[in-house]
């Protein structure tokens, strides 16, 4: 009896150890691709089940918050001006930018008309980056090339950029914000005010 108990204990210990070992393995290449696929599925579900409006925007904002690394993207979008901003300004900026992004994505996805996203090659790069190529089928014409950048900073893989036909969302926003900041005296405050007023609309 003692022997059986021992064996069971040993077995459960072994299973536990195996599970623990698996969980500390580095993220396999399948995870980023799965992240993209699950994001797409979640968004499609939301679009199907909700009508355009604040509820849909809130749902999509939640998807963005879990699957995208929004603080990192916001920091990238501010570029060199991040260092010039105070802590309070950074928080306000991230919050306003997040709402703006959620609204933008909500409207973009609202145009979804049954296209399918085919996830393709996953390329691991240095610094924990993964580049995932994918294609969005179109009803007429060539499929759109989407390239996703996924980064694992310890909290699991998160999307940090989307490139549509080579146009990076983060880079475009960075140019946009930078130009606005330069033309408004070089401080981040006017930009934050503008983003907040847009979020409030």
């Amino acid at each position, binding site marked *: 009896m003692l022997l059986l108990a021992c064996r069971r204990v040993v077995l459960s210990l072994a299973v536990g150890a195996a599970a623990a070992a698996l969980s500390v393995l580095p993220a396999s290449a399948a995870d980023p691709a799965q992240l993209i696929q699950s994001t797409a599925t979640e968004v499609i579900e939301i679009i199907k089940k909700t009508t355009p409006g604040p509820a849909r925007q809130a749902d999509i904002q939640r998807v963005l918050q879990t699957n995208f690394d929004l603080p990192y993207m916001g920091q990238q979008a501010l570029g060199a001006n991040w260092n010039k901003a105070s802590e309070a300004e950074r928080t306000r900026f991230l919050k306003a930018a997040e709402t703006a992004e959620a609204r933008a994505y909500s409207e973009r996805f609202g145009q979804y008309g049954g296209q399918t996203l085919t996830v393709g090659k996953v390329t691991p790069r240095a610094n924990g980056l993964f580049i995932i190529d994918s294609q969005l089928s179109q009803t007429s014409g060539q499929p759109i090339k989407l390239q996703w950048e996924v980064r694992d900073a310890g909290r699991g893989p998160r999307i940090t950029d989307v490139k549509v036909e080579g146009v*990076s969302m983060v880079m475009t926003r960075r140019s946009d914000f930078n130009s606005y900041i330069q033309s408004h005296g070089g401080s981040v405050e006017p930009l934050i005010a503008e983003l907040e007023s847009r979020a409030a609309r």
Partner: protein
Amino acid sequence: MHFKVQAACATLLPRFWPGIPRACGGPGLALIIESVSKSMTAGVRRSVVAAAMAATLVGGCASGDTGAAEVWDPIETPNRFVFAINRTVDMIAVRPLAVMYRDGVPEPAQKSVRNLLDNLGEPVTAINEVFQGDPSRAATTMARFLVNSTLGLAGLFDVATMLGMKRTKTDAGQTIGIWAAKGVEPENGGFYLMLPLAGPSNARDATGLMIDYAIDPFQILPIALNVDWFYYSAPRYALTVVDYRSRTMFALDDLEKNSVDYYAALRSAYTQNRAELIRAKREKTDTKSELERRDNIALVR
């Protein structure tokens, strides 16, 4: 002036972008453009080469920054002015027309118009593919043109795609970008230029537009055959504008709505898109430097 630019570029060398010294200026570019332009008539050649030489000599450091390079825009004020005019004309005339076209004209008719316009552009694409060193693709494009012009009733029906010949589109701006000297990044297209009506462009692409216009058989032939401008050129370019506007409407509306500075966002998006088209073709011979570039950007971030 050329040497001053070079000296300035050398001092701005960022640590993580080894290609920077060669990315400024681009004498190789000028040589290539010269050879391409030798096949054109003297008048056109002079103006094209003048523009191209101007673009390369004042090539400047578009990539003075690390990571995300700001597009070099030395004539930003006139560009913004032209942009404002473009937007007004667009809002008053072009966009309503494009909306009426998109909503009113039945989908098959829109497809036929697009096929027709694409077919008229195939010879230029084929010529550019030859210059890009891709003769097999050029042969496919010419085959597409022949099939669609005959079986497809002057291009209204895209029979060639059904037969398995995929459509490719390229232009002289991409050809110049591909032939540019090794250190010239695809993002570096010379100074940014906002063309009246035609929209965003840069020194390289505007030169490309002029070259394409000059070598387009469907622009040379009507003149040689004394076809009145009213019967061919005007309808063709009007249709091109409306069709193109209706196709890009979603993307441009999205960009305008979600940017605080539409001009800057459009400038960035345009430059990135063109760079991607060129990079996709250069990548075949330049994979190592492309991966290095991505690694460098990751480091800088």
